[in-house]
């Protein structure tokens, strides 16, 4: 294990940023974001960023390819930016788990090469949580926020940053940083995790087994009733991965891009025959069924949720996966 006094954090960031682009969570609570590091940029005091770390591997908008039409000829223009290595520092355990969930979607055969290139070029340095929010429930999903994964795991204790490489990519990164010293992290006692209000969340009623039972539950009507059909839960979610592919006509060429889409939207998966989920009830049900039932049914019972709590904080009407699972799950207990 390596260590570094926090007083040298700026020099550490400068050294990291010298070899590649470095992103750190910066900004005020509520608007914190992974930001390219520049001299003087400080770590945010907020627990987590407003948007999740998935943005760096699966950006909201991405140009895939361009077309130029001349007469009857269509020229296909490959416009991928050359792959550049980058480091994300300060990823929390929940966001780090979200990469596993996204990988199972984007790296399954046939792999999404845009996503894959970024995954290969990105090195993830995590940071253990010491001050969770009341909305955190990663522990209920088997994630240990005090011991996050990643290429390099990080802990801040007292005035020292401790770093432990977990992968070859991680070791290679740490070797480039001469200011790191050898050191052992002290045992951290963090009783706060036992006091989290949502730590006892029980999702055993969910998974693939009772798919139709949950799908047909009459409780969806009252749950979906107040949903505004916006996409804030989807867009701040680290595991939501639906996208749309669109063409933009610039006047001289076509730019084919993909962008995040939300199953909450009325034009999600719109077909010539119309929207397959005609009302907000079906759209709302889709989002939660996907996370609680469909995803686990095809991925060995793993839920499509990492307990980061962003949707709890950001939903305009405070409807979220914890309330949905609580209401639906209640049916099952005698």
């Amino acid at each position, binding site marked *: 294990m390596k260590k570094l006094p926090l007083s040298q954090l700026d020099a550490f960031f400068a050294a990291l940023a010298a070899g590649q682009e470095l992103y750190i969570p910066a900004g005020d609570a*509520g608007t914190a974001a992974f930001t390219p590091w520049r001299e003087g940029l400080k770590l945010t005091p907020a627990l987590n960023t*407003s948007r999740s770390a998935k943005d760096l591997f699966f950006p909201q908008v991405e140009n895939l390819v361009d077309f130029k039409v001349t007469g009857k000829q269509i020229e296909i223009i490959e416009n991928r930016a050359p792959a550049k290595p980058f480091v994300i520092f300060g990823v929390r355990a929940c966001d780090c788990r979200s990469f596993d969930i996204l990988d199972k979607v984007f790296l399954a055969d046939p792999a999404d090469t845009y996503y894959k290139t970024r995954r290969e070029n990105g090195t993830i340095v995590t940071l253990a949580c010491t001050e969770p929010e009341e909305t955190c429930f990663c522990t209920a999903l088997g994630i240990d926020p005090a011991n996050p994964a990643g290429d390099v795991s990080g802990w801040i204790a007292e005035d020292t940053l401790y770093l432990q490489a977990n992968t070859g990519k991680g070791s290679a990164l740490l070797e480039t940083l001469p200011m790191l010293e050898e050191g052992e992290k002290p045992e951290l006692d963090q009783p706060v995790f036992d006091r989290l209000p949502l730590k006892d969340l029980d999702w055993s009623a969910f998974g693939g087994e009772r798919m139709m039972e949950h799908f047909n539950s009459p409780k969806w009507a*009252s749950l979906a009733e107040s949903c505004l059909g916006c*996409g*804030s839960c989807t867009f701040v979610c680290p595991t939501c991965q639906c996208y749309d592919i669109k063409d933009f006509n610039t006047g001289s060429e076509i730019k084919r891009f993909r962008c*995040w889409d939300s199953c909450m939207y*009325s034009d999600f998966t719109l077909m010539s025959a119309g929207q397959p989920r005609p009302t907000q009830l079906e759209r709302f049900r889709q989002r939660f069924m996907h996370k609680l039932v469909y995803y686990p049914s095809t991925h060995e019972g793993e839920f499509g949720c990492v307990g980061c709590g962003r949707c*709890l904080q950001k939903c305009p009407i405070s409807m979220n996966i914890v309330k949905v699972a609580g209401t639906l799950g209640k049916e099952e207990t005698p």
Partner: protein
Amino acid sequence: MQERIKAKAIELLESGVCGRVLGWKTGEFFYDVTPAVFESREEIERDFVFGPFCGANLSKYLIAESRKGGKVGAFLKPCDTYSFQQLQKEHRILPENVYAVGVQCGGMCDIDAIRAAGIKGVLDVEEQGDSLLVHTLYGDKSLDRAAALSERCRVCKSKKILGCAELIGEQGEEQPSARFEQVAELEAMTPEERFAFWRGELSRCIRCNACRNVCPACSCEKCVFDNPSSGAENKAPANSFEENLFHIIRAFHVAGRCTDCGECSRVCPQHIPLHLLNRKFIKDINELYGPYQAGADMDAKPPLVNFQADDPEPSVVRERGTNP
């Protein structure tokens, strides 16, 4: 207040005045209340809440609720009643199917304002006069109640309850408000400064459409931005132009109809001060065409479907802006 409202809700159901009532439902925490429809005494006794975190404006739900058949009861705060009247004026709410009860409001708190004050792990709050005692995972913190208020409540324009069948609490009055101060500050900047300010704010937009979907004035069945045939559809802000386009068009479309209820800014997950766009239109309308408050008067003609022969010419924007 909560007990009086719950008693009224039960009374409305049991006397047969309404088949269901629209109110706020308790959540996992003290602050995460959800608008909900209640149909029985049991549901109301168990789940109905009214407190300093019931900021959601229920008026927009009445568009759909008033069309479901039967009469729906609704509890509306003063600013919600402006939206309620405005939507009736636009024939979006069918008033004959709504039994509105006005509830007086002392200003609504915003959990994000508490978090912005650097308070983490909030478990509960107690109102102690002008201050809030905040219980957190990390001990108790104290905060001025004013600092926990929503921006819109800090500059509350009116405590007047409009168009309701009955009131719970005292009828209030319009009151002086500093709500245009920040607009004036922006107007006093140079165009370069304003451009930089808005780029900083609007570049955070993730086009989740929360501002639009929560907005009582945004009640189109199909928005141009969602309509693949409109030529303006876009699902994500691909660049700065599209960020500007969405917010300019949205603010323009609600100009003259926006009651300044402030829901857009409350719900923005990226904390973009969207009310500053709407208030700019309101301020301009007041200054150029005479004072107008959307929703206040059922008979007044909305400024954008009205004109005077001697209205100022558009060049007023250039002339007015000669300094700085």
